[in-house]
């Protein structure tokens, strides 16, 4: 075996083995805490159940129509829809607004402070206002998702557009490129890696936004947040609550991996920042073949 492939194989093993070790340590602490903190098993199960209890009681009742894996997946579907649609709208709007800001300093100065305010307002503190404006069904949850996801998209896109290489701008100026050509052939491609970073951050926010919105707006087609909240109310359903939460966060991880994969496809050939992604520890989250 060649030395270089030996090294790369070792590196690949370590990118899998090390996180697994961390996970085992985490589970051990969980078991230890649950074991020694609670005297009686019922009390424990209703507060911090053992991980295997979450699996057997939270996920496993396969034929139960109210609790367990099947209803969880049923509640996930609206969450998935709201998250994707919300993220999509946030990307389209965020890119559009960032592009306007990039075209005109005036627009940037008039809008940017409000974008920051939008980001800092605790959105769920204005629940009554949102209900007044958008009701309590899937529409308002979409609005919440867009509101939490748009800021990272917009700011990263704007940063990407504005950090386009000055020498490349000079080159386009020398060739009498129009504003439109400059935008399409220079600024958009330059901003792509930044935009993808923004979308990756926003994807996590979008999942949390759509799940938490379920807590406050619970009419119409309900999502996984509703499942989690209603199982919070009874201590006896603690395993069910954890099962719902774990499923929601697995979805968040899946979004993160998906966006990372799309990013590496989109800029695979050419960008320095792609090299940084390749070398980062997120490698395990990207397809292992082709490296």
């Amino acid at each position: 075996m060649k030395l270089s492939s030996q090294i790369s194989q070792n590196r690949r093993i370590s990118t899998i083995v090390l996180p697994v070790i961390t996970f085992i340590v985490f589970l051990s602490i969980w078991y230890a805490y649950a074991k020694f903190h609670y005297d009686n098993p019922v009390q424990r199960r209703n507060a911090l159940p053992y991980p295997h209890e979450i699996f057997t009681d939270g996920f496993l009742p396969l034929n139960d129509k109210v609790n367990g894996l099947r209803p969880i997946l049923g509640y996930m579907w609206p969450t998935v829809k709201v998250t994707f649609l919300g993220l999509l709208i946030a990307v389209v709007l965020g890119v559009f607004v960032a592009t306007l800001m990039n075209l005109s300093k005036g627009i940037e100065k008039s809008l940017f402070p409000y974008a920051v305010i939008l980001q800092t307002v605790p959105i769920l503190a204005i629940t009554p206002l949102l209900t007044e404006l958008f009701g309590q069904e899937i529409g308002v949850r979409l609005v919440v998702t867009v509101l939490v996801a748009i800021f990272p998209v917009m700011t990263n896109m704007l940063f990407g557009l504005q950090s386009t290489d000055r020498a490349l701008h000079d080159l386009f100026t020398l060739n009498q490129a129009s504003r439109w050509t400059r935008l399409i052939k220079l600024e958009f491609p330059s901003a792509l890696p930044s935009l993808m970073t923004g979308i990756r951050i926003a994807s996590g926010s979008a999942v949390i936004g759509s799940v938490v919105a379920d807590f406050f707006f619970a009419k119409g087609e309900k999502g996984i947040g509703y499942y989690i909240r209603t199982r919070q109310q009874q201590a006896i359903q603690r395993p069910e609550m954890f099962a719902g939460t774990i499923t929601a966060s697995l979805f968040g991880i899946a979004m993160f991996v998906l966006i990372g994969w799309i990013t590496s496809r989109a800029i695979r050939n050419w960008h320095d920042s792609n090299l940084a992604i390749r070398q980062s520890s997120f490698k395990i989250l990207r397809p292992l073949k082709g490296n």
Partner: protein
Amino acid sequence: MTALSLHNISMTFPDGTQAIDDVDLTIKRGEFVTIVGPSGCGKSTLLRIISGLQQPTSGTCEVNRKSLGYVFQDSVLLPWRNVRKNVELNAELQGVPKEQRQESVQKAINLVKLNDHVTKFPHQLSGGMKMRCSLARSLVSQPQVFLFDEPFGALDEMTREHLNDELLNIFLQEKFAGLFITHSIQEAVFLSTRVIVMSSQPGRFISEHTIDFPFPRVPDIRYSAEFAELCGRISHDLKLAHA
């Protein structure tokens, strides 16, 4: 035939720095003029004024900007385009139809010997290959005037000499009017028909040397006594420019 002429060009920056003071320069087609001078003496600013990227404080510049090649200090390639697409860029931005530009793009690629690398992306190229690509991009439109802003400054000595040889070959074929900027006296003497020494703050032309080596020049003239003497004279003037 005069391709470029500057009259009384001066440039003072808003902070009061006088970058260029009363510069006159005329270059004909088939002439290759090199400016040497200390860092920050306004050499690059002069090229930016000629190309129209900057306006001079005073003076006039006569040049056909529609037929201008500009090679930057860095290769300035689009990282998301392969070599062929990068070479095509200027012609594409100038609105040359796709079918019409193919032939001149291929010719430029041949000229800089990048034939085997047309599908590579910039991050896969060496420094020398990137500069060739950059050069080819400007060659496509066969400009009458070619501006070079210290293009080979970041390359190692061997690569630089090699590219100098090739640049001279291209110059002989294309017969443009060249204006080249460098820190390297050897490079200046080897390439040029005239070498101008520029002082800094204010940036002025303080001396001019005619280089009479006949074309085509062989690499070995670098080792001749005459070459060494010219370099010595220019070096002496440069020391004055620094003072």
